[in-house]
Structure formats: C-alpha cells, structure tokens
C-alpha cells in the first residue's frame, strides 16, 4: 500500500539553509530513514544523511523529527497521522556540516578525556572473576550505541555553546558511572573528577537525556543521580563530615 507523504527536509550548510518541501511515496511499515533514502535516490542525489545499520544498533542516523531528537531508522512513518507533514532537521546542538549531517567531533573529544579502565596488575589473562550481579549495572551503560541524542538534547550544551568546554554530557556520565561501578577498575578518584573536571554539577537532572535514549538506558536515575550521590559521599555527607572523614579523604 503506497501513499504520498509530505516531507520537509532541512537543506543547507554552515553558511545558510532552510526547510525544503518534498512529496514522496511511502509504503506500509516504512521508517523515516526509508523515506529519506527514497528522496535521495529519486529527487535529491546529493542529500547528505548519516546511516549505517538501519536496525537501531549503530546510532548513526540521529536527527530531529518534528523537533524531537530521534533515530530515523527507529521512527515509523505510521506513528504520525496520515496527512501530517513530517519535518526532518539536523541535530541542533552540534555544528552543521551539510543537510542532515552535523559535526559530532565534540563527543569524541570528550571520550578522550575520561580516564580509561585500569585493570588490576595482579590479574593475568583469564584470572578475573566477577559476579553477574556486580557487572549488571555497568552492562546497562555499555548498551550505549553512541547516537549522541542525549548529548544533543541536553540543554546544558544545546542552549549554551560556552558550556561545551567544561561539560562532558550524559553519554560520558554513564561512561564514568560504568567505570566507577566496574567491579575491578582501580581508579579511585572518578567521583571527584566527575564533579570537578567533567561538569557533573552542571546537570540539573531534567531528564531529557533519558527521554530520548533509544536504548532505554536510565541515564539519569541509574548513572547521573548515583554519581551525584557518590559525590555527596566524598564531599557533603553529614555523617562523614562530622567524623572528619571528608577532610582526611580530600588529603589523599
């Protein structure tokens, strides 16, 4: 069953751009990415769009569909009303390259700033023992497909370009949480650096990252808030403050 769909696509680059209207065929069961590909193959051969797996596993086709950050391959055309115009725009937190493609290098820079996992020196190959219950929390965060929708929707950088230098963003807060909860990681000061270097305190937990996560990772409840609580442990905990433990830890 084929019908016509009204699509508005943002076309342009860093100098200028705007929304262009196209009418395109759409078949039953198709997702927005299918329709964009049809536009590309039949009407706009040079329409730039990123995509890879088309199965919601690689996190390449991140864009904004009717203003919401989404994966185009996971957005069914049928989820919109028939006759409704679908507006497709590039991610709005990152510099534009062309059409639906933005420069997401910010995220790769931030990835390089999080200190890597450090394995216990005494454990050789095959000697590590970890219980399933101890790895499950971190495993949730390792589901991340790095679509960067959370980074894109986070108002800390979306609405404040100047914060980019001091804020790692939700994707890297889950990375830090993953490592801090990793049963064998040796690095002890991840809580302090999360707060003092990666901008954890900038987050005001308005939860948009969780709302847009296509992997349904509970970014705020399971990573950011627990990390904020761990920061409270080392900086503001009442019991530890009275016992003087906080001051002792700070010296370490």
């Amino acid at each position, binding site marked *: 069953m084929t019908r016509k769909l009204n699509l508005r696509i943002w076309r342009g680059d860093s100098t200028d751009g705007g929304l262009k209207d196209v009418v395109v065929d759409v078949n039953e069961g198709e997702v927005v990415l299918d329709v964009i590909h049809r536009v590309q193959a039949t009407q706009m051969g040079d329409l730039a769009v990123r995509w890879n797996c088309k199965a919601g596993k690689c996190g390449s086709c991140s864009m904004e569909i009717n*203003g919401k950050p989404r994966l185009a391959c996971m957005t069914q055309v049928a989820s919109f009303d028939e006759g409704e115009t679908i507006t497709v725009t590039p991610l*709005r937190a990152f510099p534009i390259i062309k059409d639906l493609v933005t420069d997401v290098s910010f995220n790769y820079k931030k990835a390089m700033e999080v200190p890597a996992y450090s394995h216990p020196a005494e454990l050789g190959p095959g000697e590590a023992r970890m219980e399933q219950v101890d790895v499950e929390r971190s495993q949730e965060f390792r589901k991340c497909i790095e679509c960067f929708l959370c980074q894109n*929707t986070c*108002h800390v950088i979306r609405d404040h370009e100047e914060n980019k230098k001091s804020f790692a963003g939700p994707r890297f807060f889950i990375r830090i949480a993953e490592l801090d909860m990793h049963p064998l990681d040796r690095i002890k000061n991840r809580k302090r650096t999360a707060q003092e270097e990666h901008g954890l305190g900038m987050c*005001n937990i308005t939860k*948009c990252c969780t709302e847009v996560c296509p992997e349904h990772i509970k970014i705020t409840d399971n990573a950011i808030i627990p990390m904020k609580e761990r920061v409270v442990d080392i900086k*503001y905990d009442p019991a530890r403050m009275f016992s003087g433990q906080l001051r002792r830890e700070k010296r370490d």
Partner: protein
Amino acid sequence: MSGVFSPTRAKIKERTLRTDKWWLEPAITFGVLFSFVIYATFRAFEGANYFVEPLISPFYSPCLSEACVEGSKLFGWAPVSAQVLGFALSPALIILIFPLGFRMTCYYYRKAYYRSFWFSPPACAVAEPHTKYTGETRAPLILQNAHRWFFYAGLVFNVFLTYDAVLAFRNEHGDWGHMSVGTLVLVVSSSLLWFYSLSCHTCRHTVGGRLKHFSKHPFRYKLWTTVSVLNTKHQQFAWFSLAAVAFADIYVRQVATGAWTNFYFF
C-alpha cells in the same frame, strides 16, 4: 546569539519544531505546585485550626513552640519560645524548612520545577530563555547537595507523623480503640510519606547503591533491589504524598473550624 541560534548550528529560526503539546506537562506542574505553595504559605502563617482532638495537621507536626495550642505539643514539650527574634512565628514556620527542604532538593522535584518554573529547559529540545547557565555548581543551587541531610531529617518527621496517625486511633476524649475518617486521612498521608522517602534516590544510594560489589553484601543488595523498584515510582509517590499531606491539612482545618464533622467508624 547562543545555543541553537549559535552561528555554527543549522540555521533554523524556531525555538523548537516540536508539534506535540510539549507545554502541557510543565503548565500542569506549574499550576499544581504553585497552588500548593500559595495554600501552604497561607496555612503556615495562619497559626490556627491545625489541631482538633485527636488530629493534628502534618503542617504543624511536630508542634514545638510555646504557641502551640493545648494538646498539640509533641509529648507536651515546647522547646521554642513563641517569639523568635521578636517575631511571633507560627509553629509551622519553625519546622517547615525540613519537609520543604526535602522536597525542594528532591531529584524529582528539581526536574519538575526547573522545567516548569525556571524553563531550564521548559521541555526537551525546546530552547530555554536564559543566556547563562551554570547548573548546580555554585550558590545557591549547590545546596541541592544537602538532599541527604534533608532525607535523614525527613525520616525523623515521618516517625512523628506516623506517631500522629497512631494517636488518631483515639476519640476526641483520648480513649483508644476508635477510628474516624481523620484516622484514615493521617494513616494514608503518613504512609505515602514513607513511600516517598524510601523511594528516594538518596535512600537507594545509601542502602546499597554506593557499593561496588553487591555480591559481598547480599542483604544490602536485596534492600537496594527493593528500593530500586520503589524508585521507579518516585515521581508518583512525590505527587501522591504531596496531595495527601495537603488534604490531611485541609481535613484537619475543616474539622477544627467546625465546617466538617469527623465521622467515627467505631
């Protein structure tokens, strides 16, 4: 020009291209929270109609001031004078900071009011109006880190309010073994407060979340698992407990003024 209108970003003039009713949720949140604040302020300053045997309004409990009406004082004790620094403070104002602080610093309410009162952001992918943003890194918002202090205080309050609910199993002459609509109201509101406190993120962290190895602490892991389940409903508990506390106060006030009669089941 900053944010989504920065020169490097795709040139789109709309603050958002969302076509759904994204403004509805913050609008409702604003309406409800604002009404509560107005009502609570009025009641906190009223300083009357908060006690009628055997019921005490949760806004006024524990009643610690010399100004507390006869029978409302916690164990008949009044450590705070009726005048503080020359002001005649209502007994509610002395204690309000604790439950208020707990809710103000609660991870859920932070989301709710940052969005609906401060538009930071009003909704996801809707540009916020502020030109500068520093989050919770400096005063006053750095005080959000005091949530754990308020959590502990909140637990103490829950004990008092539960005690109040137990006292409500008496009749207006102080005889035990009775139960009224007022009893139910206090039992429900104090229970919901427990659910609200125990489902809190700080609680989840303290009972087990801070551990690195769950496998070495099976009991705490079990606690953590239970609190984690409650935690997914923290938002609902936040609203239900707020509504229940407000209603308990309204109920006590209505009974105290004589507008309603506290019906006894037995």
